[in-house]
């Protein structure tokens, strides 16, 4: 079968200035692969990013790309999605960007279940400002440039996303691009708000959770004496957490409890994969459509507002009549 778009159709010629070995490269590549495999028309894809190293990503992807303000990628993305629900909208946020300065937006986006995807570039540090602690850095960790160990606890993106109401919650690893690509595809295809927390080493500033560490450095199997990779795939364990309307309360509680256990796993065993899918809720766009029957076929971004002569075509006479006496 001949494909309409080639992988190179999703690339730009822009000079990439991420550090060598940065996990961002893996995420970028997985994203481009996912768009390619889904054969999405670049002009139907809107990427929104915030500030930081992750914020530069849209410049490297051939799609409509908006490098917005620190922490604000989500509301920009949501505005665009609600104006054009037919477009594919993806927000690319950093851990500090999305869960620190943008935490309020992250929380409230989850409440709405708008059909879009959030990808968190999670390396536990503020890279571009030279390695300060981000909201996902664990308590007591002292990465390279910190003058003192981290004095705050870390937020758990998976559990936070669950608490906010995201209906697709996954974790990927930047150096497993194939697996990450599949997660991104699933997230895009999911109807509702999807979030992927992508663990990525920052080779420049995070000297603790490095590529080697994730690969198992220091995690010795007492039997074999070999290093055991810390990262493992949820699906390889038979884990599958999908919540549907048909389930009983007990069944849902059991599934959620299982998810919470997995989400808290860290250290010698770090799960990646899909943690949670909830199929019980309509999207925000579905709810709008119930109020505005032609919302999806004639959304705000497609509406004509003037006739050929340039005069407004809006007819407010019924409203005026109501206000007249």
């Amino acid at each position, binding site marked *: 079968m001949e494909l309409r778009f080639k992988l190179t159709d999703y690339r730009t010629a822009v000079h990439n200035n991420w550090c060598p070995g940065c996990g961002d490269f893996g995420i970028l590549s997985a994203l481009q692969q996912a768009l390619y495999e889904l054969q999405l028309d670049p002009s139907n894809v809107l990427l929104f990013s915030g500030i930081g190293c992750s914020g530069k990503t849209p410049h490297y992807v051939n799609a409509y790309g908006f490098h917005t303000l620190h922490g604000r990628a989500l*509301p920009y993305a949501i505005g665009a999605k609600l*104006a054009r629900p037919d477009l594919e909208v993806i927000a690319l946020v950093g851990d500090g960007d999305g869960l620190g300065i943008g935490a309020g*937006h992250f929380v409230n986006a989850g409440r709405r279940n708008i059909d879009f995807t959030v990808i968190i570039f999670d390396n536990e540090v503020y890279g571009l400002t030279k390695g300060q602690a981000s909201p996902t850095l664990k308590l007591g960790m002292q990465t390279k440039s910190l003058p003192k160990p981290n004095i705050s606890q870390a937020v758990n993106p998976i559990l936070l996303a669950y608490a906010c109401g995201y209906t697709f919650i996954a974790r990927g690893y930047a150096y497993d691009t194939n697996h990450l690509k599949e997660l991104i595809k699933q997230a895009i295809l999911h109807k509702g708000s999807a979030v992927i927390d992508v663990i990525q080493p920052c080779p420049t500033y995070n000297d603790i959770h490095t590529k080697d560490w994730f690969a198992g450095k220091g995690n010795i199997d007492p039997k074999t004496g070999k290093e055991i990779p810390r990262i493992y795939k949820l699906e390889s364990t038979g884990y599958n957490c999908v919540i549907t309307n048909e389930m009983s309360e007990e069944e849902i509680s059991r599934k959620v409890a299982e998810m919470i256990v997995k989400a808290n796993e860290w250290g010698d065993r770090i799960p990646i994969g899909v943690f949670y899918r909830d199929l019980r809720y309509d999207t925000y766009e579905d709810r709008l459509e119930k109020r505005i029957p032609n919302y999806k076929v004639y959304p705000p971004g497609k509406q004509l507002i003037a006739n050929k002569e340039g005069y*407004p075509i809006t007819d407010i006479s019924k409203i005026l009549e109501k206000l007249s006496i």
Partner: protein
Amino acid sequence: MNNIRGYSWLIGGAQGTGIERGASIFTSALALWGYRVFGKREYYSNIMGEHSYYYVRFDEKPVRSHIERYHILAAYDVETVFRHNLEGLEGSAIIFNQLHRNTKLSTIHTIEERLAHDISARLKKPINDITLQDILDEAESLGIKIFPIDYNEILSKVSAKTKEPMVVLTRTNNVIAVSASLALMGYSLESLQDAIAYVFEKRKKVVELNMLVAEATYEQVKSKGYDNSFNIKLRKLNKNGKFLLVNGNQTVALGKLVAGCRFQTYYPITPASDESFFLEDNEIIDLQPTLDEYPLIQESKILDNSGSIVVFQTEDEIAAITAATGAALTGVRSSTSTSGPGLSLMVEGLGWAGINEVPVVIVHYQRGGPSTGLPTRTEQGDLRFVIHAGHGEFPRIVLASGDIEEAFYDTIRAFNYAERYQLPVILLLDKYIANSVVTLDGLDTKRIKIDRGFVMTEKELLRSKEIGEQYKRFKFTETGISPRVFAGTKYAVYWATGDEHDELGHITEDPVIRQKMMEKRMGKLSLIEKEIPIEERASYFKVDKPNLTIVSWGSTKGTIIDLMEVLDNEGYKIEFLQVRMVHPLPASFINSVLANKNWLVIENNYSAQLAGLIAEKTGLFPRYQIVKYNGRQISLDELYIAVKRVLEGKAPERQVLEGGA
């Protein structure tokens, strides 16, 4: 105030007890008889219990402002009389609940200590000894007539008829106050009942109940002979068609609908939220296109010729402006509405829209600042803020409408400017415009054409793609305006960034491109100077050989125009320059009007911000300034006194007005 046309009515009571509804019935009744009204609402940042009041000025000819004096005070609580007893004009009336006569000042906890002390000093009596009777006596000594109403008797009568308990019926106290006022002025009960039906719309039971209350009130007023002892009488006027009875939140919302705004974001804030509520209430929009003209509409199977506006309540104001901007990137006309604290939060979003040349419209209703300030009171304190808000330099347009009607047309223009010049436009209004009501003859929805500016369509993009031309969102052009593509349009992609960028929208720190980009963006201000006619930027109410030239902006317009008429009758020739585009300021025009003149600036703020701006841009300074910053709008009566002082050469350079309860 015999020289000020028309009459003034004041209703007051505790917040949450129907002040607005009462005023609504009153204004509707007057409009029904062909009277022009202007109503001003005052309320606390409070849900229930604090003092709320509403002035309605009305006349046979249009009225554009309020006076802080009344011909009738319609009170149904005690506090209202305590606060307003001395505002009565000659021959005016106070309607009150006779049960309240002996209520003590000290029992009214919502009266501030400052006011209680002032009353005590005025009456030369200790606070604990003062009752409402003292206040009534004080009013009577000034020639104000007292009309005690037995509220209880009215409610008992209605209760007997309807079997509704008295507790429930006290909710209609506002209607008693309104009915007594209208009965006093010889207004017909039937018309009042029509007005009640209009205001309560389809709520049949409420309509019936209130009609009975009106009827019983009329009976009491008649039986006491009150209607024969009050001089002001209304008559049914000849009127062609209906009047539109609207406030500024509504005319802005209507302007947005007509302009084609189809995406509105907001975070709740007084006095802006009502506009968004109104839009949400009217989210499905009637259209009048000819279908064959619009293949696109047929294609998308639009139902019943309707469009829609999505009104999106965000988690904060940062999300409000950024979501509105995100939507605007897809080509929809998009807007957000807010007030002082909200705009403070939005500033970073303004900058992003600025550097990325995104057309987004922000309606900013000023209220008393700084910080939370006076959440429910008016002020014009944000002029400097809105023209400078944001770090760095980027072009924007700031329009300041003078009244409720102008706000409708300016709203449409705001979207045209935003798209034509590809920049954020701020429509600067205030609480006075947002919350006041006025009778209008109508709104002309075809007066202003839609101008979407320089947009490249799918077809054009395909053509340029075929010749191998890459689309450049920030292309350098002669005018500085680049072709805009709605994100999501086929055959193109583009980038945008809050960083400085090249023509494609990619980050650059190249000094040469940076300089060119700055000049491209900032150059739009000169283009605006060149293209937008002066009639859209300033209104000059010119007279020959003026005694005085008044300069102002925003919501003082109606008061100043009403004042010009009053002074004209006294033989003074006053002219008025209303600055409507406060940024970029039409400086050369202002200079041509004001050079070599003694002029007076009038502003509802402390530092006379427009005067400062004019001085900065023209080197001209006002001879006089009249300012007010107690959170209450400059009223016609106080402005009359202050300007008269100027005309008589008795005024200091700066007068600070203090009126308002």
